[in-house]
């Protein structure tokens, strides 16, 4: 295997595995910056995966090649609706954020499978016919060395995810909305005093996380698993959550962390095709992302640096 071939395989599989994580982690960043801890990303992704697969199976004939993209959008909307549960519970009803998020995680897989059984009368769906597949940038793909590595047979959702990251970074740090959102996660009392609608901002944060998490789940389902079953999203949402923390609650950081986790995940899958890596027992590659997360948390963070009011209920006093 030539070096370029190895690198292009590594980059493309890293991108494929990173795309769902990037979207979902961005969602987590927005939720937590608004002050609502969202441990329910896993459940949100599951709902996104479920709905996009159902959409894809139903409408692949109608929409053809753009079906997966529309499926991602449907996944996002369903994720947004599902995250409403978390928003209402934590923002209006003073629920513990961790418990409420856990409810999303407990709820989504059985709900998805129940509906699959109700719709298709079996426990998991057929494989979709229109998946994301690989994409080559016209023109760019012909650049020597760089072209084959980054732009040939690459993952289109990953490139979209990177662009979305930059936009969301800009929104969070350079716009009035972003400033207000962050102020609700840092000091809701002060924000309230300044006339910012804390509840509204927190709703925005959670719903954005639901939308992006749903997209993340949809992309995972439509690019990687290809169908929906109870085990489609095992651990991806938690990985995204780790990427939020790893990336210090910053969109760019979360993206880089997701790329790293995507790399670690893809290594465990394509490792046997690569020189050097094929000598390492599979288990080390499988547990690497999780071990590295812990090590990084210990080495670089110590005391967590989450937004100050992250996870705390804000009760408006009259």
């Amino acid at each position, binding site marked *: 295997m030539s070096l370029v071939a190895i690198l292009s395989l590594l980059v493309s599989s890293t991108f494929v595995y990173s795309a769902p994580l990037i979207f979902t982690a961005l969602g987590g960043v927005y939720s937590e910056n608004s002050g609502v801890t969202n*441990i329910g990303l896993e459940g949100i992704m599951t709902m996104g995966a479920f709905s996009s697969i159902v959409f894809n199976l139903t409408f692949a004939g109608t929409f053809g090649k753009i079906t997966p993209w529309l499926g991602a959008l449907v996944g996002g909307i369903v994720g947004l609706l599902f995250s409403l*549960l978390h928003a209402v*519970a934590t923002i209006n*009803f*003073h*629920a*513990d954020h*961790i*418990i*409420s998020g*856990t*409810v999303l995680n*407990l*709820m989504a*897989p*059985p*709900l998805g*499978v*129940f*509906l699959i*059984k*109700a719709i298709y009368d079996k426990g998991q769906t057929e494989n979709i016919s229109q998946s994301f597949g690989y994409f080559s940038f016209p023109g760019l793909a012909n650049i020597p060395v760089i072209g084959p590595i980054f732009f040939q047979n690459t993952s289109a959702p990953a490139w979209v995810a990177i662009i979305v990251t930059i936009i969301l970074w800009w929104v969070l740090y350079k716009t009035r909305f972003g400033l207000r959102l962050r102020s609700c996660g840092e000091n809701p009392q002060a924000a309230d005093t300044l006339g910012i609608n804390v509840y509204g901002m927190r709703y925005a944060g959670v719903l954005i996380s639901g939308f992006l998490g749903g997209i993340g789940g949809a992309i995972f389902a439509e690019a990687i698993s290809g169908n929906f079953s*109870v*085990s489609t999203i*095992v*651990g991806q949402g*938690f990985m995204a*959550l*780790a990427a939020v*923390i790893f990336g210090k609650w910053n969109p760019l950081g979360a993206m880089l962390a997701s790329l790293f986790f995507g790399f670690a995940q893809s290594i465990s899958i394509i490792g046997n095709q690569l020189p050097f890596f094929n000598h390492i*027992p*599979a*288990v080390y590659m*499988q*547990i690497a992302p*999780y*071990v590295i*997360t*812990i090590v990084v*948390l*210990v080495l670089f*963070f*110590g*005391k*967590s640096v989450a937004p100050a009011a992250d996870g705390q209920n804000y009760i408006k006093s009259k």
Partner: protein
Amino acid sequence: MLKVTSRTKRILVPVISILAGFLIGAVIMLIWNYNPIQAYSSMFSSALGNMNGIGETIREATPLIFTAIGFAIASSAGFFNIGLPGQAQAGWLASIWVVLANPNLPKVVLLPLAIIAGIVAGAIVAGIAGWLRAQFGTNEVITTIMLNYIVLYSCQYLMQQIMPSSLRLDTDTTKTIAANGSLKIDWLSSFFGDSRINAGIFLALIAVVLYWYLMKKTTTGFEIRSVGTNPYASRYAGMSTKKNIMLSMLLSGGFAGLGGVVQGLGTYQNYFTQTTSLDIGWDGLSVALLGGSTAVGILLAALLFSILKIGGLGMQTIAGIPYEIVSIVIAAIIFFIAIQYVIGRLFKDKQSPNLTAIKKEVQADNGRQK
């Protein structure tokens, strides 16, 4: 708005949550054209209608009692231990391994040895998260989640690659354990219609009493609770936060490990490859939340969950309704527990006149100080 004492309210909130959870389940079933009355009646009749069903329900409750106690101990100390699945899994594999490797030891030695191995394995897994939190302040929610996956893949590896193949049936299943290391009691399971009920339930009842005694009657329990309530005040009072963090996580993991032990030595009599985190871990968390982390509450909540789960299997075969509805009901119940603030607002605290007087005095006192 009803006026009730706070004691009644403590009981009403979970009861209403349970009813609301069942209602959500019923609504979902109605939407998809299933008959909820038929579903719930077949659920209860298959879980409680015959001796086998009752035996299986008790059997199902056994590990949940352990994992729920594990969760409750950690949460009294202010930790959200989501690592129960991994801790239980480690306990399961360790206890089975000890029995398989020493089939000829006498039962009085082997069984306790295997149980202790399971406790230690669970405690080590939880202890890692506790130590990281105590030493470096690492967020235990993330570390315990990560440890779940590490344990999941490591157990797969340990069983498939490290365990001598003479102990295994094939790559995914170990041999059945010898009677010397089993928690099975023949007369008990034949009394309950040949169900898989086992001695684990006696251990679980002992654990419930121990848990009650530990938290309510001992200094250790008091320290754990006070560190959970207010770490700063506890430190000021001379309690070691680090020591209590470690202790509560070790105890928590030990109990979770026991949950895995009864699955292995009691229910299944072997270990087989797991592809996802153990159910008993997640359900234990739910049981502890529903039971309000009290000893009696945990016992009752574990039984309710088991009725749902065992009954759900019957419901699926008898009424043809997907089993998943059970898990949806459980999640809905926990959701209502989580928003108990709203449910609590349906009732007003009936305060004793005495308490009201004290409150007034305190307020007046505060006024004077200002």
